[in-house]
């Protein structure tokens, strides 16, 4: 069975939701601890949402130097699928596994809503079960989700098909309406919305979140 690890940092909030989403999607959910120096032979890793280290300094800036991150950075560069959700996305940017950075939302508000997104590429480990151009609804909840990058970086991301999700109605001022991106290889994906909250009818406005985890399982099983 595919084993997907979820890392808990001090201040992680959605680690248990992510573990549950992994389980509901048909993989074995493996809890991982930020202070560990191994990822326990998992096949893929999720960095969950929350407020690691209270968002002190910058979101994700301190958690990025957790012992487990050295292993994750090394594994990600070797091709292991890594998904960063919200604080996890900020962490991936701080770790330079993904380009760019998040700043405060343009109108200063914390935004919590069901967000429409367009899947811009199915050519990543975490979106291969979607159709390109598919419109999905995923829960969004953050105060610092405003994605920014240098113009040349944005151009490269666009040219290389590395923009994975775009907001249909940009809530926070993100450059080019970007909600999520990937690395050149397509194994590392980060996004601000929370797919782990869209896996059950009782609590989610859609079940579109499941497809993220099913994509990774599909990719790893076909390998």
């Amino acid at each position, binding site marked *: 069975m595919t084993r997907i690890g979820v890392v808990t940092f001090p201040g992680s909030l959605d680690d248990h939701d992510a573990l549950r989403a992994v389980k509901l999607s048909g993989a074995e959910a493996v809890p991982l601890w930020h202070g560990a120096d191994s990822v326990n032979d998992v096949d893929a890793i999720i960095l969950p949402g929350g407020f690691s280290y209270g968002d002190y300094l910058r979101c994700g800036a301190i958690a990025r130097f957790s012992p487990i991150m050295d292993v994750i950075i090394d594994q990600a560069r070797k091709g292991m699928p890594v998904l960063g959700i919200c604080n996890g996305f900020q962490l991936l940017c701080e770790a330079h596994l993904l380009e760019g*950075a998040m*700043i405060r939302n343009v109108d200063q508000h914390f935004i919590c809503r069901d967000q429409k997104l367009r899947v811009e590429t199915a050519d990543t480990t975490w979106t291969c079960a979607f159709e390109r151009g598919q419109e999905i609804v995923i829960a969004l909840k953050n105060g610092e989700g*405003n994605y920014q990058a240098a113009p040349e970086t944005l151009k490269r991301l666009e040219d290389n098909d590395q923009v994975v999700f775009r907001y249909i109605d940009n809530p926070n*001022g993100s450059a080019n309406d970007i909600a999520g991106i990937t690395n050149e290889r397509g194994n590392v994906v980060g996004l601000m919305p929370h797919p782990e909250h869209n896996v059950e009818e009782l609590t989610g406005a859609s079940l579109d979140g499941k497809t993220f985890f099913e994509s990774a399982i599909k990719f790893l099983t076909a390998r």
Partner: protein
Amino acid sequence: MPRVVVNVMPKPEILDPQGKAVTGALKRLGFDGMTVRQGKRFEIEIDGEVTPEALQQVAAAAEKLLANTVIETFEVVNA
């Protein structure tokens, strides 16, 4: 103990939502003609003398952790 200061500012081309909000509040309070950009100041006490090597170490720390040079610039000041 000798003190070195690191000032971190959002890059000029990066929008500064916090500075913008403070600018708006100042205007409402009657402080006209003031445009704010908000940054961070780190006061670092170091063991020993402030040598060029020590300043270099502080700059390395700023580059690695205190600032995110994708969106921010920093300066090291021997205070």
